[in-house]
């Protein structure tokens, strides 16, 4: 469904991706792991159209996305939950969610998707009239995931959704992802929480310094000595 080949991206003179190749199939959960500064966010931003890659291909259902505007990429069924959530801070929970349904592909299903999001995160339904800035970090992350779901995506990309959350909240966010995936949405998950991410992912990639250095089934990566040493610590 999503095919990335030899992708190169840079900020000015700073290379962030030097030839990344990976794919996400329909219905899959794929995890992307890597240390700080590896280029994970850069990769997601390139796919979402927020950053123009220097070279390589991003194909989505056969179409090259590199010249498609970011707002039109949403129309193709790709949604992203950005790093740091990036909510519309001065608006209410419901306004944030409704804005998620701005795209033409999402408008007809707005009501149904809103119900789906509230079913997934019941606490948001209680807080629907609150300004999002007043919510806790975990609730804000739920709004961010909910807003992306409102675009009615075929593929949901998430950039470190568990960052800064208490373990209990991390679990409920990740469980929500499994639930979303069961509904037929493919998930591309960037995580530093390696154990949790690889447990729920079908497949995973390891990105270091702008290159893919490892890939495999989630369970296999969990047993991989390099992954264990680098990401799970000596005690794992």
């Amino acid at each position, binding site marked *: 469904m999503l095919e990335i080949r030899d992708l190169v991206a840079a900020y000015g003179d700073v290379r962030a991706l030097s030839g990344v190749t990976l794919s996400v199939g329909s219905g899959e959960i794929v995890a992307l792991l890597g240390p700080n500064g590896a280029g994970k966010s850069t990769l997601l931003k390139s796919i979402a159209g*927020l950053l123009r890659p220097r070279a390589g291909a991003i194909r989505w259902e056969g179409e090259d996305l590199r010249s498609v505007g970011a*707002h039109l990429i949403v129309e193709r069924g790709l949604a992203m939950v950005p790093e740091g959530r990036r909510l519309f*801070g001065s*608006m209410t929970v419901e*306004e944030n969610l409704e804005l998620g349904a*701005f795209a*033409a592909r999402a408008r007809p299903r707005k009501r149904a998707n809103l119900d789906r999001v509230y079913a997934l995160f019941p606490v948001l339904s209680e807080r629907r009239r609150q300004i999002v800035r007043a919510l806790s970090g975990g609730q804000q992350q739920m709004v961010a995931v909910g807003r992306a779901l409102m675009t009615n995506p075929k593929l949901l990309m998430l950039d470190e959704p568990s960052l800064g959350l208490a373990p209990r909240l991390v679990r409920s966010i990740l469980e929500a992802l499994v639930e979303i995936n069961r509904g037929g949405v493919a998930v591309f998950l960037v995580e530093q929480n390696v154990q949790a991410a690889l447990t729920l992912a079908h497949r995973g990639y390891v990105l270091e310094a702008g290159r893919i250095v490892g890939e495999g089934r989630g369970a296999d990566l969990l047993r991989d000595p390099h992954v264990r040493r680098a990401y799970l610590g000596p005690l794992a």
Partner: protein
Amino acid sequence: MILAQQLLLGLLIGGIYGLAAAGLSLVFGVLKVLNVAHGELIMLGGYGAFWAVALLGIDPFASLLLVLPLSLLLGLALYWALFGFVVRADEETRVKNSLLIGFGLALALHALAVRLWTADERSIITPYGGAVISVGDLSIPVVRLLSLALAFALIGGLHLLLTHWRWGQAIRATADDWQAALLTGIDVRRAYLLAFAIGTGLAGAAGTLVSIGYSISPSIGLEWTLKALIVVVLAGLGSMIGTFVGGLFLGLAEAASAAAFGGPYREVVGLVIFVVVLVLRPRGLFGR
């Protein structure tokens, strides 16, 4: 003149300050571009109304129905021709380029107005221009009262537009975080365009009210840009109702200081407020 009367007149012009500031605030909040030619757009709106009344013989207030849509169109044209290129640049370049374009536009519009209408001061004479409502010792000029009411109605309409219209919400989302707006499928260029057009429309409407209750000349632009900027700083970004209240506040403060220290200090008080707010409350009274 008794103090209450002066304050009343301050409040009446304050409504127009609020309207003048709303357009500037919208454009600044959404495009992150300070349009220093905003006052010239107000001036142009004033002459537009002046022409509509002189050439078509329509009621001055009815000229709004002409000036408002025409200013919207002017806003579209200005965005396509000038400001649309500015917003593509990164933040620093954006600030520099927009100031350059804004000052250039201000000079050009000033020169155009002098050519078309001479440098003389003008105001629209209405058949009911002298009418006043007397309440106790106060006499309320009907025309200015109507202007205040219209300014309030326009701000209210704008508020509804921004909260209930699909693209109004998109404009607010873009103001909050344009990249997040893109990720929800909003064409932020279109949001910029609409915000700029609406901002110019509001300037035109404000100019119309200025030319009816007060007076216009080709050189009023800078003064109105300053007033609008003071109100924007005073009120903060994000709330149009707050901006309107900020305008009323500036009008009152000007009147109070004129009463206390004499007329010449009228203009100074705005700048003092500007500095005080910047120091004490950088996000403004109602800013988010």
